[in-house]
């Protein structure tokens, strides 16, 4: 029976054949093919994000400006929702039954499409009273859970533009930056944006394991692969909350911007944009709604950060710069006299001037803000034939001086939206007047801070601060220190010197500025017991009344504050800008106000109804007369 003896081998061979076929198949799916491992990872692991608290922000005196408030998001895992008493839950939530059912259905479909058992957000940021009510009943609602998140809270209600706001990250960011995921919060403007990475901290991840229903079953390997969340660091701002608040109050019902800088450090003390809004409006559930309301106010444009982003012609305050440049260029001395015939005589009385004693020297020209004087000065700089063969070369030199004061260049600040300002280029005038076919008389308004010049209030304040320092500035910045670090960022300790090198030139100008307040155009800015140096400006603009501009610093010796203020369409610098600046300086330096009537008048002044088109024009020529 040869065949019979063979059968056991055939049977055994058949067994081995199938078993090894299986082993081969197992080798493929277990070792060769990775797709099953990936599926497993996605299914059974739940990478739970731990959100760190966002850093607080304090003012220079340690006053809390921004903190976090706990908010409650209602999450749902649609798969787990079973035998839900919909009516009861709607009642607790205060939600319409139809809305509830529709939303749950949508999320159910979404969860099914994604094949992701992670919980989805059912309702964002429950109102505290809703949460309190709901909490007691949560045990009944299988599949629902509450996740705590933090929302920003602004206890002082000030500096909305400066602090900025936080909102949900949008698609563009999540696509570019892998740190953010849908539903995360990110700083959208202001310091919140500028210091986003410091404030947010670092998200942590817990690797949890879950079962087929999405129930969490514990940490993977007791959490050895977890990363802890790192809380955001707190920031100490250079802002003086009291000064900021006072400034905002003074600017009520007025349009414009104020920037106050501590000259010795470059720290911004106040940065006011008016009209402003309550930063708490742009928080939480109502954010979108409120944002739209603010956006729709096209007259006041409360979302527009004028202090940083609006280009204004600096008007007469710019004469200070020309006085400095003239001296440095050797075409102007304190005793230089120029006539004024209610205007600039060589060009037939244009630009115009107001009546005052003539001729004046340098000091007097600042005190009286003589337009004619600075037309002469500007011309002597640009058409200085001993130094420059062509006007173009003179203008180029002048432009460089201006730029050394931080105008027409971007200040490397920590503020978001720092703009360059506009000091027209040679190319611009070549295009306008023909190549090389222009000279000082074509651009004479630059001498008095008009024409195409566009300067932000921040830059005006920085110029003032530079004059107070007699020739240098620290880049203006808003954050003094990050977290517990005592050291200031090295970036804020770099002195930027201007091209005007002799402090005597500054002294001469400062004397003039002192005269402005003592006996000149800004006597209203006098503060008892404090020597204030200032300069008024009246910036002409084609859209309405002149902008009222004022820059000043005080005290004269060892200045503690430099301030620039622009009030749109409010006329002479001395009418609104100078008094407001003066009150702020007094408040900052002495902590009290000695001129209550003036304060009252400023606080109650309402200019909004008066302005027709308050829009500050960017890079639009605003020709002086």
């Amino acid at each position: 029976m040869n065949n019979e003896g063979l059968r056991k081998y055939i049977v055994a061979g058949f067994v081995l054949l199938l078993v090894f076929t299986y082993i081969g198949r197992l080798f493929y799916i277990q070792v060769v093919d990775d797709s099953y491992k990936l599926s497993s990872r996605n299914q059974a692991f739940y990478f739970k994000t731990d959100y760190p608290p966002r850093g607080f922000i304090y003012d220079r005196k340690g006053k809390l400006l921004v903190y976090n408030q706990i908010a409650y998001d209602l999450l749902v895992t649609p798969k787990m929702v079973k035998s839900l008493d919909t009516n009861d839950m709607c009642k607790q939530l205060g939600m319409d039954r139809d809305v509830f059912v529709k939303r749950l259905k949508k999320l159910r479909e979404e969860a099914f499409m994604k094949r992701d058992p992670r919980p989805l957000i059912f309702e964002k940021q429950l109102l505290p009273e809703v949460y309190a009510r709901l909490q007691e009943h949560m045990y009944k609602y299988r599949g629902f859970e509450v996740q705590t998140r933090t929302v920003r809270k602004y206890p002082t209600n000030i500096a909305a533009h400066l602090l900025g706001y936080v909102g949900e990250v949008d698609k563009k960011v999540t696509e570019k930056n892998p740190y953010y995921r849908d539903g995360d919060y990110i700083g959208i403007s202001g310091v919140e944006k500028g210091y986003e990475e410091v404030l947010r901290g670092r998200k942590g991840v817990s690797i949890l394991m879950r079962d087929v229903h999405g129930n969490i079953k514990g940490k993977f390997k007791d959490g050895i692969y977890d990363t802890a969340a790192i809380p955001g660091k707190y920031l100490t701002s250079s802002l003086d909350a009291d000064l900021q608040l006072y400034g905002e109050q003074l600017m009520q019902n007025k349009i414009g911007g104020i920037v106050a800088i501590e000259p010795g450090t470059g720290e911004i003390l106040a940065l006011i944009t008016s009209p402003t809004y309550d930063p708490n409006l742009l928080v939480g559930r109502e954010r979108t709604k409120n944002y739209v309301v603010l956006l729709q106010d096209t007259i006041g444009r409360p979302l527009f950060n004028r202090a940083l982003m609006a280009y204004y012609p600096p008007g007469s305050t710019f004469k200070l710069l020309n006085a400095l440049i003239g001296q440095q260029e050797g075409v102007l001395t304190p005793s230089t006299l120029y006539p004024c015939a209610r205007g600039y005589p060589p060009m037939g009385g244009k630009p115009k001037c107001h009546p005052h004693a003539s001729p004046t020297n340098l000091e007097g020209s600042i005190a009286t803000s003589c337009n004619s004087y600075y037309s002469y000065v500007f011309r002597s700089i640009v058409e200085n034939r001993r130094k420059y063969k062509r006007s173009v070369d003179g203008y180029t030199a002048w432009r460089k001086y201006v730029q050394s004061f931080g105008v027409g260049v971007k200040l490397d600040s920590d503020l978001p939206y720092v703009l360059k300002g506009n000091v027209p280029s040679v190319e611009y005038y070549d295009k306008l007047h023909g190549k090389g076919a222009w000279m000082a008389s074509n651009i004479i308004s630059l001498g008095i801070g008009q024409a195409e010049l566009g300067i932000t209030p921040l830059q005006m304040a920085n110029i003032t601060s530079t004059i107070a320092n007699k020739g240098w500035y620290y880049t203006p910045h808003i954050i003094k220190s990050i977290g517990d670090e005592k050291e200031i960022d090295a970036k804020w300790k770099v002195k930027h010197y201007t091209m005007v090198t002799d402090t005597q030139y500054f002294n001469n100008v400062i004397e003039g500025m002192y005269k402005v307040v003592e006996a000149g155009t800004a006597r209203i800015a006098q503060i008892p017991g404090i020597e204030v140096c200032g300069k008024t400006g009246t910036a002409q603009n084609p859209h309405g009344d002149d902008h009222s501009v004022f820059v000043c610093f005080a005290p004269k010796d060892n200045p503690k504050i430099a301030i620039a203020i622009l009030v749109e369409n409010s006329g002479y610098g001395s009418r609104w800008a100078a008094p407001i600046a003066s009150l702020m300086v007094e408040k900052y330096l002495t902590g009290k106000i000695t001129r209550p009537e003036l304060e009252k008048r400023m606080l109650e002044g309402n200019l909004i109804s008066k302005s027709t088109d308050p829009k500050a024009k960017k890079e639009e020529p605003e020709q002086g007369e």
Partner: protein
Amino acid sequence: MRERSDSIFANIDWFTVVLYLVLVCIGWSNIYAAVYDEEKSSLFNFNSQPGRQMIFIGVALFLSLVILIVDASFYTATAYFIFGGIILLNIAVIFLGDDVKGSHSWFKFGSFSFQPAEFAKFATGLMLAKLLTEFEGQAKWVERLVFGILVVLLPVALCLLQSETGVSLVFFALILVFYREGLIPGWLLLLGMIVTLMALLAIKFNIEGPRLAFFICVGGGAAVAFLLTWRARLSWVFGVIFTVCMLALGLAGWKISGEILLYSVLVLAAGVSCFLAIRMRMFIFNSLVIACFVAGSVYLAPYGFLKLKPHQQDRLRVFLRLDASAEAKKKELYNLNQSMIAIGSGGLTGKGYLQGTQTKYDFVPEQETDFIFCTVGEEWGFVGTSVVLILFAILIIRIVFMSERQRSPFSRIYGYAVASIFFFHLIINVGMTMGMVPVIGIPLPFFSYGGSSLIAFTILLFIFIRLDSERLYILR
């Protein structure tokens, strides 16, 4: 007699016993892992499945000892009664059993339940051994075949009546016994496999009308050619050529190449068949009968398919990678995917004992019973799965070779029955977790949770070990 009973333990095949114990231990630890929950991990909680399985193992070990102590001739003498009794139980359960998801195959006693169908396996093995031994002799092969087939079909019918389709299929594994005993020739087994394959292909491509005719002709032609050349020197070559030809046609050529090509291949196949038939001077009539049988099976397959229960159709569709109904996609396909993800995610060495996430967290269906192999795959990886498969292969082949060393045909026949039942369970159970066979709900011996199956498999194996210990004697 005295001398014999003294040597019981000496003649026991300890290798097989140890292999059994190893498999039971691995099996239990995997059940423990499959239902492991860190929060309730008390090891000997007798309400938990591992705890209960522990009790079952204790019962099984006790029974195995009893089986070894009982005289071997007891099994030969009482085979009729054992079979009859078990058959009666299986009839009774149809009427008295509890309704579990539509099947009536369980008796319930308090918190324990009992499935008589599991015990029908060893009873049928004993009965088959007894019958085939009774009708021994070359002349009586027709009686042997007919009675043998009847013995197998009886439990099959009962299982179908209990709505336990999966269990009923197990008895078809006994065909290996018929093969070993020379009652069914090897070519018939091979033909059976070919027919099965062709039937599946017919279902897969849902062939109708002229396409069906084509399929029948190609299939029939291939079978005829193969059978006609059977035992000729070149038979294997033709067999292989035609089988491959047919498979290739069925799998790939059908949709791509168009009908003209296929019909020409059909004509070619028929021509070659005729040529070979004449050349080999074989019995054309016999061959045609077989060809008709093959063709008929394949022809009927798509219709038979529609007669299956919806969930069985879905399982078969999933296995054949056909577009299943939406319901099936959700459930059957999901189950298969989860099962493969669990095994596949184990990698080379697995995630570590009790570290499986897919099985532990209920992603895998019936993870502690029919899909227990997923736990092995996930936690022990490829190393674990191959070790388990190889251990089973060793056990099965060991039983085959032990059967061959028996003096009494009863022991040999029973041994083959044991080997084929283990083999069928192994291939179907492991295959279904990998999607290599359709999902058929039968347990993996010694691994799947459940008292009935563990105890029944233990009895099955230890009766053989007891019989083997008497291998030097002829039992009647």
